[in-house]
């Protein structure tokens, strides 16, 4: 049992932190980048590819680096610290994860190789309008005609969808309710993609399929909902890592602000009512940190049931902590916390975007509550 990074992990963190710090040293750059058509910085994306960051989750056979969950978590935390709008979680962890989980060897080698090299951008289309965190597709239907497949329907929100070259789509298989859900590749040009900005200004899209040509990932017509659920769980855990990075920055920014902002002739940290609230933010941060590290480590064991449990546990904790820390960060900054030009408010928006995209607090709590009599004590180890 060990919660410390080894030397290589430390070095990875320093390298990613250094690169991101130079890219997003001031928050204004982040705002401009997020507001651009792509919604992220292609130059920075290329540098991440060169550093091997985009290929971290994928095996060397598939053109990746074959790193473990802890390394990917480190990258997500660093992206969160500076609120980088790059679609790492959506395009690499989630969409790439689906390809890695269910693609044929040829599909994986081709697509993941190009993804790792920064040559192709992916997005996962797995949510129907009004849908809520389900591995079952109900917004998009697949049809087969001989060997060729087409998709019809709508996926929304598709995070990072506007800039994607290839969409990784979950769709109901032909044959009615019992047939299950398959995963398909669709060239973005074969679908109608309407991009928009989410509350944190990162980009998502509405994607309409209208007889769009699709290629089944892996073996055609097989129900893949179990793999889809597991990849969502993994993405949830990595999303929690990203949220941790955001919360760390928010606690630091708030503490710095309390020490420097003067009102009534003294700095705000003179007022105990405020320092106590900062202390409570710190407590929440530490508890969330522990849970994030733990959940990340459970992935290495490879048991989907354990990962699913960890995803719910970290999802609930981070959701609660994110609300608390995000709201307090704005409140303790006063008016400046409300402005778009200041990182704290956008950070709070980003925490909510992560939650509502990947699974919010009540959702995870409901799943945990369903299982409450499966065990006596909850065991950490």
């Amino acid at each position, binding site marked *: *049992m*060990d*919660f*410390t*990074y*080894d030397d290589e*992990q430390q070095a990875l963190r320093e390298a990613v932190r250094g690169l991101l710090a130079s890219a997003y040293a001031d928050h204004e750059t982040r705002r401009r980048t997020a507001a651009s058509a792509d919604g992220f910085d292609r130059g920075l994306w290329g540098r991440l590819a060169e550093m091997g960051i985009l290929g971290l989750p994928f095996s060397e056979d598939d053109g990746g680096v074959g790193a473990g969950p*802890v390394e990917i978590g480190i990258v997500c935390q660093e992206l969160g610290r500076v609120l980088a709008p790059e679609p790492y979680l959506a395009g690499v962890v989630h969409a790439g994860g689906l390809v890695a989980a269910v693609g044929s060897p040829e599909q994986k080698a081709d697509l993941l190789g190009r993804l790792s090299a920064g040559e192709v951008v992916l997005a996962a289309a797995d949510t129907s309008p009004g849908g809520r965190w389900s591995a079952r597709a109900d917004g998009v239907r697949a049809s087969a005609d001989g060997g060729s497949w087409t998709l019809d329907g709508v996926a929304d929100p598709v995070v990072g969808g506007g800039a994607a070259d290839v969409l990784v789509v979950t769709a109901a298989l032909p044959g009615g309710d019992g047939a299950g859900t398959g995963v398909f590749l669709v060239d973005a040009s074969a679908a109608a993609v309407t991009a928009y900005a989410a509350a944190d200004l990162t980009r998502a899209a509405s994607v309409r399929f209208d007889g769009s040509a699709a290629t089944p990932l892996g073996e055609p017509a097989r129900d893949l909902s179990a793999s889809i659920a597991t990849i969502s769980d993994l993405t949830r855990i990595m999303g929690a890592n990203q949220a941790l990075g955001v919360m760390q920055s928010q606690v630091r920014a708030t*503490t710095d602000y*309390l*020490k420097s902002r003067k009102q009534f002739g003294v700095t705000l*940290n003179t007022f*105990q009512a405020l*320092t*106590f609230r*900062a*202390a*409570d933010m*710190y*407590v929440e941060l*530490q*508890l*969330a*940190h*522990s*849970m994030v*590290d*733990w959940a*990340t*480590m*459970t992935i*290495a*064991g490879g048991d989907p049931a354990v990962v699913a449990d960890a995803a719910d*546990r970290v999802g*609930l*904790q981070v959701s609660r902590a994110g609300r608390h820390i995000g709201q307090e960060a704005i409140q303790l900054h006063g008016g400046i916390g409300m402005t778009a030009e200041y990182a704290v408010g956008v950070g709070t928006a980003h925490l909510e975007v992560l939650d509502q995209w990947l699974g919010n607090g009540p959702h995870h*709590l*409901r799943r*945990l*509550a*369903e*299982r*409450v*009599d499966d065990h*006596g*004590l*909850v065991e*950490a*180890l």
Partner: protein
Amino acid sequence: MQLELSPADAEFRNRMRELFTTVVPQEIRDTVLEGRHLTRDQIVESQRALNAEGLAVPHWPVEWGGQDWTDLQRHLWHEEMQRAGVPTPLAFNASMIGPVLAHFGTQEQKERFLPATANLDIWWSQGFSEPDAGSDLAGLRTSAVRDGDDWVVNGQKTWTTLGQHGDWIFTLVRTDTEVKKQAGISMLLVDMSSPGVEVRPIELIDGGHEVNEVWFSDVRVPGDLIVGEPGAGWTIAKFLLGNERVGVAPVGATKRALATLKTTAAAQLEDPLVRARVAELENELLALELTALRVVAHSSDGEPHPASSVLKLRGTELQQAVSELALDLAGPASLAARADDDSPQEGWARRAAPTYLNLRKASIYGGSNEIQRQIISRTILGL
């Protein structure tokens, strides 16, 4: 980073699990597991049984009965002990005065007191707080004036937990009124059977008698019973209070209480709201346990050590929250708190209200939760 315990630590844990369920009598463990009151004799018997196996004071120097364990092993020892329903060794002895004497005591004091303290041959009480000196401990007024070789003590202590059982009391006394208030404090060891020591009970809101006032009227204390130099009391007290907070987050016991509640109040587990409250508490306890593990694994991530204040603060909040849940589940049955033993209401439900009321103390003593927030905001966040 790695989740599993090393094979050596896993074996250590299994050994603890095995020992704790065999060394201490089942009847004592059942008393703890069911949340009933332990008698003085049971506490003594249990600690002696642990001490015989080298399990009572593992964090002391090896020379005085300690085990050269890692922080993680001590954590496992503590968790397994709570899990098995073994009463934790008397904190005043094992976590407070023992480590203080081992660190600051003279060789004579160590030889005289440490073995007896480990074995609970001496029952210690903690005489720090006074009516006008609680959180602001340095404001204490009980005085000790030198007379020949002796000190003569006058004043009043309060909130002395289990002082009715105490053989000896370690006190903070003012030995110098001329200097800054922290600098004029010393620590004295006082035999509670000395003439002039009087212990008066205080009844608490749960109806129980666990705290007392201790009055000193011209109590003579031999000069060799001062710990450290005159005026060193504040430094020693800070050392002691630091230890007091470590391990004060009763994660294991709270987890066990919640698990027990799931079976005793099983019928109500059908209620989705109850399930949600249980699931929430389980999650928060897991986060706290993992934080304790992060602390013992020295993974402070370059930040100041989050350490004991987070654990004390949240640990006591969760301990209280589980007692609130128990009270809500008991409902009307909880009114039978002070009914006779032939009450038709179940024991856990009858104990729910007194337990809830009693546990309000957890966020007050050992440095109130407000003081913990102060420590976090000042020491860790630099505010």
